[in-house]
């Protein structure tokens, strides 16, 4: 495995900037009532061989006649035959992907953006904080960390969602829970059914663990409120803002800074992000309507 992983791989876009390449849906696995993990395979053999990505990057998935959506990659970066995307069925594109189903065909452009700075993780503790569907772009990081576990001291995964039924990757969460190499903590906003675990926002979990601020790097991905709360909590715990990385969501349209949609201050989320160090965006992070 190449260590220089944060070098941005070249996107695959067909012959033209905006032209998606055909991909086949190999598998569609239900994560919960409204979330599916979709494995797609680039049809063209040559392109498939060239296609590389790093954790935290996203693809534009195109359904003809419906539109395109930016979807983060959730599978193992060493797995090249297919690329996994975990989608929540909330928009017309994601619903259409579900309708097309296993065996069907969609279009893909990507990978886009800059992923998690895995190359800058020299040692120390790594804490991953995910909220809801925000766990999806963190899953490849977990795979990577477990493969390179000996380089790090402590690895923690904090995950929060609305109810136990909203959890993603449940078998894996359970597996990680039992894995001594990673501390996994899951919390829900509302306990339903037989849930006996923690209840409350995911940032509350930070109080349960002892953070060594000097050697901690945090990766955060969740809804806006979670990102803010996590950033604030980590600041309270004296984690340096240069070592807090947040993956942001915006309406990516072209994927490489030419359509203007995803601008966040002077950043293009699609190109400069979606992963930002908190220190890069500290000026605007807590401001409204930027």
């Amino acid at each position: 495995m190449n260590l220089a992983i944060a070098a941005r791989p070249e996107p695959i876009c067909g012959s033209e900037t905006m032209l998606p390449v055909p991909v086949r849906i190999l598998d569609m696995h239900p994560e919960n009532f409204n979330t599916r993990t979709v494995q797609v395979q680039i049809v063209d053999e040559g392109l498939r061989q060239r296609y590389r990505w790093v954790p935290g990057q996203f693809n534009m998935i195109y359904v003809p006649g419906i539109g395109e959506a930016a979807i983060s990659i959730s599978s193992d970066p060493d797995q090249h035959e297919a690329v996994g995307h975990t989608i929540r069925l909330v928009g017309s594109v994601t619903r259409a992907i579900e309708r097309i189903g296993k065996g069907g065909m969609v279009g893909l452009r990507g990978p886009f953006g800059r992923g998690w700075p895995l190359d800058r993780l020299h040692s120390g503790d790594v804490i991953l904080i995910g909220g809801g569907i925000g766990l999806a772009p963190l899953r490849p990081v977990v795979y990577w960390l477990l493969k390179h576990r000996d380089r790090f001291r402590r690895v923690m995964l904090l995950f929060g969602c609305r109810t136990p039924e909203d959890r993603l990757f449940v078998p894996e969460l359970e597996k990680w829970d039992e894995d001594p190499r990673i501390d996994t903590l899951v919390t829900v906003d509302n306990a339903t059914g037989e849930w006996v675990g923690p209840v409350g926002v995911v940032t509350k979990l930070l109080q349960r663990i002892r953070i060594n601020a000097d050697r901690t790097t945090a990766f955060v991905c969740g809804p806006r409120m979670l990102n803010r709360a996590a950033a604030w909590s980590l600041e309270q715990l004296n984690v340096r803002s240069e070592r807090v990385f947040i993956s942001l969501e915006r309406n990516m349209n072209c994927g490489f800074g030419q359509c203007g949609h995803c601008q966040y201050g002077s950043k293009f989320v699609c190109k400069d992000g979606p992963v930002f160090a908190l220190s890069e965006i500290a000026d605007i992070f807590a401001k409204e309507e930027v």
Partner: protein
Amino acid sequence: MPRTGAFTADGKPKVAVYKFSSCDGCQLAILNLEDQLLDLVGAIEVAYFVEARRRELPPPYAIGLVEGSVSTPEEEERIHKIRRDCDFLVTIGACATSGGIQALRNWADVEEFTRYVYAYPEYIKALDTATPIAAHVFVDFELRGCPVNRFQILELVAATLAGRKPAIPTYSLCIECKRRGVSCRLVSAGKPCLGPVTQAGCGALCPAYNRACYGCFGPMELPNVDSLGERFIGLGYSPAEITRMLRSFNGYVEPFKQASDRYAQRD
């Protein structure tokens, strides 16, 4: 969720077209889709459309297109049944989305209106107001315009069939006008153009014909009517004239109504 009865056996959505108080122009817009008409009636089942056919299929309907505003007691009742009959209710045109030109009565004494127009006012059973459909029932989607742009109806149907959100802009007419390369009537001719507060969709017709937009697609998203009004005052138009400009085919929809009320008071 659409009901199974809202589709034919071969899976076509049953579509109903209804008329309330209106000029028929928005229904006619459907018949004016000459090049696409046969494709359209092939892709959907025209289940109820009095202006076009005698035959009727029973409800439920997958899509209901409603033209016209509610201005009589009978219409006030009928819209509730229609809401129950249709899974996806779409209003087409200014009357159905804002009350239309007949909503001018809402600022007037309807009894006096009735006496002026009709010899036997006692026979007229009209409500004091003409109101948009959404003032009575929940509306799933609104298509603006006096008349509606027929290609927006087509887009609505095509998008619904495809399962995507219809591409109906809510931004200003200016964007459409500039895309088309039409010269600005307000800036380069000093005409009182409502384009900067009007929703796009017509294709910037009026500016392309050398006249100021008169707002037949109604207010855009979050319009700043007062700022434009001040510009008109600067151009020499009186509050009364601005009131009239706003009170036309979409006068009774909130942003225009509120602004026109303010200008009427300044008069």
